[in-house]
Structures are given as structure tokens and as C-alpha cells.
């Protein structure tokens, strides 16, 4: 556990996985909501296969893997051309963004102009088109578009390399290369961002990738905020359990006083807005304040906003799978008469 503050107590858990090889979920046929489900008698969660093998199996066989989550955009075409599987996609309530270390030594990242320069330096349209294979949406603040009604969506920062260079210079520029760190499987995103920063700002950029258990000390150090961070921008992905709670989960995590990803001083204006949000109990009121919070985060460039990826699944052709934007659930999922388990 990493403790962010003691009063009121705020903490997050740093997890290591120890999965059972196979987990079997059996339907409760007496569940009250018959319209919803369950429609499947049994779901077997397989933890006994490496991802790449599971991807091959779902594309080339039946009876081994019926649903594979966490498909990367680069693998989408393989599924789309498969005889056995289909690609299922949904715009997820999930953001890929950079934590900006406002305490970084030797860089002016406490200055809004410098943070704005970082945001203007990134070509989000190209990032989505080339790195994400078109399977993502540019991010304006931190709220994924899937969590915001169309009329309330903000425009992302434009790509404006010359304005970015001006602002970067006005803020004092860099005395050393920028250090871009990245968690998990987002290395390609970090490399694309680094190239944009180098090209727009004329700075050197070093990229460091943390994978698997290497992530834990990075996450702990960031959540606890007692030691200096070893990076200037940390790129990671984070989602929300509900569209309505996106600010409480994403914006709070990146910027809030209790935020496990906040790198820099508490922002009083943000905290005031967050208190205002907590007092709202109707969806329209909550959406209005949430929109102002997202606009504040975008305008103050309190994060490096990048993109909201689609959640991609490889699904056997005889399975009717309903993807969730915030979760991974099977109540509505069913199989047809040709499915291997019904022949």
C-alpha cells in the first residue's frame, strides 16, 4: 500500500498478481433480472496461456479461447482477417495521458506556459492515426469523450509547434534533456510523444520504459510524494468505473490532493471545484461541474493530454459479446447453436 496523505487518510494499493490457472464462473439461473442474464451456463477464465498464444488460438481454432481482451491496435487487422474470430471494439472510458512533474529540477514545468508548450508540441491526430492505428480519440483534458455528452466535449489542444517553441522559450526552456517515462505497454506512445517534443521544442528527450514489477517502485514513489521523481513526464493509462465518476477517478488521480498520480503542489482552484462537485447530487449539476473541471485541467495544462483508446476484443464468430465502456462483463453475452460448447 502507498499512503498519499494521513488526514483524511488516502492510499492506493500496489498489486502483484498470483492468478489461479483457470477460474470457473457458473451461472445463477435464479438471478432476478432475466432480461439481462446470465445467458451463458459457464465462463472459464484462462490464466494458463501467454497473450500471444491466446491471440493465435482465437484466430485459428475453436474451443480454446472465445474472448480475448486487451487487444492492441496493431493486432486488430490479424483478427479482422481471421476465419474464426471477429474484432469487437468500444470507445472506452479510459485515458492515456502524461503526468507532468511540476517539481522537476532544471525545467520550468511549474509554469503554465511550459506545460502548455508540451501540450501544443504533440500531434494528437498523428498519434491516433499512426501509433493507435485510428483506434483512439484525441484527448482534450482528461475526460475520455465516451464519458461526455457530445455537446459538452472540449476541443483538444491543437498541434502548433511554433507556438509551443515560443512558450517553451518564454518559460525558460530546458537546461537538460527531458526524461519521459512510460508504464506498461505504451512504449510506442511514449516514443511518438518524445519525437514530437524533440521536433517542436528543440530539446533532447530520453525515454525510459518500466514494465511488470519495475512499475511498482515508480507507482509507490509517485503516490507517496516523499522522494523526488526520476522523470519529467510519466505516460500511463487510467480508467473510471462509471462515466459519471470520471472526474473523481481520473482528474482526482492526476491533479487532486489525494491523487496517486499528482506530481507537484496541490492546486487550490482544483480542490475548490472538486468540493463543489461533491455537493452536487443530480446528473445535470454533476455534468456541469465536471465539464468545468475538465476545462480547467486542459486550460492549465495540468496533464499532457494524449488520447482515449478503444477497448478491443478478439471474439469467436459464434459468440455474441457486448463490450462495456468501463468494465468487462458477460451478463448479456451468449453463444449460438454452432458454438463448440453446444454442438
Amino acid at each position: 500500500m502507498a499512503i498519499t496523505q494521513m488526514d483524511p487518510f488516502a492510499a492506493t494499493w500496489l498489486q502483484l498478481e498470483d492468478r489461479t490457472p483457470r477460474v470457473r464462473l457458473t451461472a445463477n439461473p435464479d438471478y432476478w433480472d432475466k432480461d439481462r442474464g446470465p445467458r451463458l451456463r459457464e465462463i472459464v477464465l484462462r490464466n494458463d496461456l501467454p497473450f500471444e498464444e491466446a491471440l493465435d488460438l482465437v484466430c485459428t481454432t475453436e474451443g480454446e479461447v472465445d474472448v480475448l481482451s486487451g487487444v492492441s491496435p496493431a493486432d486488430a487487422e490479424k483478427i479482422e482477417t481471421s476465419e474464426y474470430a471477429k474484432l469487437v471494439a468500444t470507445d472506452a472510458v479510459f485515458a492515456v495521458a502524461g503526468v507532468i512533474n511540476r517539481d522537476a529540477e532544471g525545467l520550468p514545468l511549474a509554469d503554465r506556459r511550459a506545460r502548455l508548450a508540451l501540450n501544443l508540441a504533440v500531434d494528437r491526430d498523428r498519434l491516433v492515426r499512426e501509433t493507435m492505428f485510428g483506434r483512439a480519440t484525441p484527448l482534450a483534458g482528461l475526460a475520455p469523450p465516451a464519458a461526455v455528452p457530445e455537446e459538452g466535449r472540449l476541443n483538444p489542444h491543437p498541434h502548433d509547434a511554433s507556438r509551443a517553441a515560443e512558450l517553451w522559450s518564454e518559460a525558460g526552456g530546458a537546461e537538460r534533456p527531458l526524461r519521459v517515462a512510460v508504464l506498461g505497454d505504451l512504449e510506442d506512445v511514449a516514443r511518438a510523444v518524445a519525437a514530437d517534443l524533440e521536433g517542436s521544442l528543440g530539446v533532447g528527450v530520453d525515454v525510459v520504459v518500466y514494465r511488470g514489477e519495475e512499475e511498482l517502485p515508480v507507482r509507490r514513489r509517485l503516490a507517496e510524494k516523499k522522494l523526488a521523481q526520476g522523470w519529467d513526464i510519466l505516460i500511463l493509462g487510467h480508467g473510471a468505473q462509471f462515466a459519471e465518476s470520471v472526474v473523481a477517478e481520473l482528474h482526482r488521480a492526476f491533479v487532486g490532493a489525494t491523487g496517486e498520480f499528482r506530481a507537484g503542489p496541490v492546486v487550490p482552484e482544483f480542490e475548490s471545484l472538486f468540493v463543489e462537485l461533491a455537493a452536487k447530487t443530480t446528473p445535470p449539476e454533476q455534468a456541469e461541474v465536471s465539464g468545468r473541471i475538465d476545462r480547467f485541467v486542459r486550460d492549465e495544462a495540468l496533464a499532457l493530454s494524449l488520447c482515449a483508446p478503444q477497448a478491443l476484443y478478439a471474439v469467436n464468430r459464434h459468440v455474441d459479446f457486448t463490450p462495456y465502456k468501463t468494465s468487462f462483463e458477460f451478463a448479456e453475452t451468449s453463444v449460438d447453436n454452432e458454438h463448440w460448447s453446444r454442438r
Partner: protein
Amino acid sequence: MVEETNQGNGPVGTINVLDPSPLNWLYITYNTVEELVRATPDGTIEPAAMEDYRWLDGGYTLEVNVREGNRFPDGEPLNAHSVKRAFDEVMLWASPHPPGTQFNFAAGTTLEVTGEHSVRFHFPEPDGQALGKLRAMHVMSTAFWEGPGFGYERQGSGEGHW
């Protein structure tokens, strides 16, 4: 193309799933456990074990009507007392939820059983995020609490195991 499903005929078929997400443990919970609310495929909140709700006292009180006729798989009725037990259990711990304390109810929150199928949450400050937090308050049977619990039997603690 799916030509025919089993809707209306009871659950049929088996699927094999591989989910590398670090939240796989949470998705297993969501697929197997009842809460007062759940997510729709679009990611919005909808009632589950809760029939309906209303806010009172300017956001200091949330009144919840629990769906009648709902039972746990072992046959025990799911009612206001089940909700009270779940609330009492989650409030035992400083940091029960692995993602973090953002899903906690504030210290000083209480729950009052006002009927066989109705409860009231009383908050020390208005908590507009409370509906979403209800999904992290898993409503379980007596046999669960007095058996494995969330890490109780195996770890001797519910901290970080909800």
C-alpha cells in the same frame, strides 16, 4: 453472424476467456456479486439490488429502497439487513478497495435501516459520488461474511481485498 441465442431458455454454453487486465480480479467480482448499483454497457450507473433512491437534506442523506424478492444463490433473502451488514463490513477497514481510498465513504458516515427494504445513508458532508461508491460496497450473504469474507479467512484482514 449469431443466428439464435438462448435468451428466455435459461443459461447455455461455455466460453473460454483470457483477460490480461490488472483489474481482472475486479471484473470477476462484478460478474459474480450483487451491488446496489451496476454499470450499463455505456458505463452509466443503473440500479441493481436497489429499486430506486432519492437524496434528502441537501445531499446529507441518501435514501435507498432495496429491490424486493431478491435472493442470494444460497436462498437467503437480500434485504435492508444485507445492505446494513455490507456497510458495517466495509466500514471496518481503512483502505478496503485496491484502487484506493477514493471509493471509501467518509469517516462518520452511518447507515440506518428504515424498513425491511429501505435504508438511509447519512453523510457528514454531502457526497454526490456516493451512488458510484455503492458499486464498491459488495452485498454478500451471511454465509460469505462468516466464511471466507474478503480476505478474512485467508489473510486475516479485509484491507485491500474488496
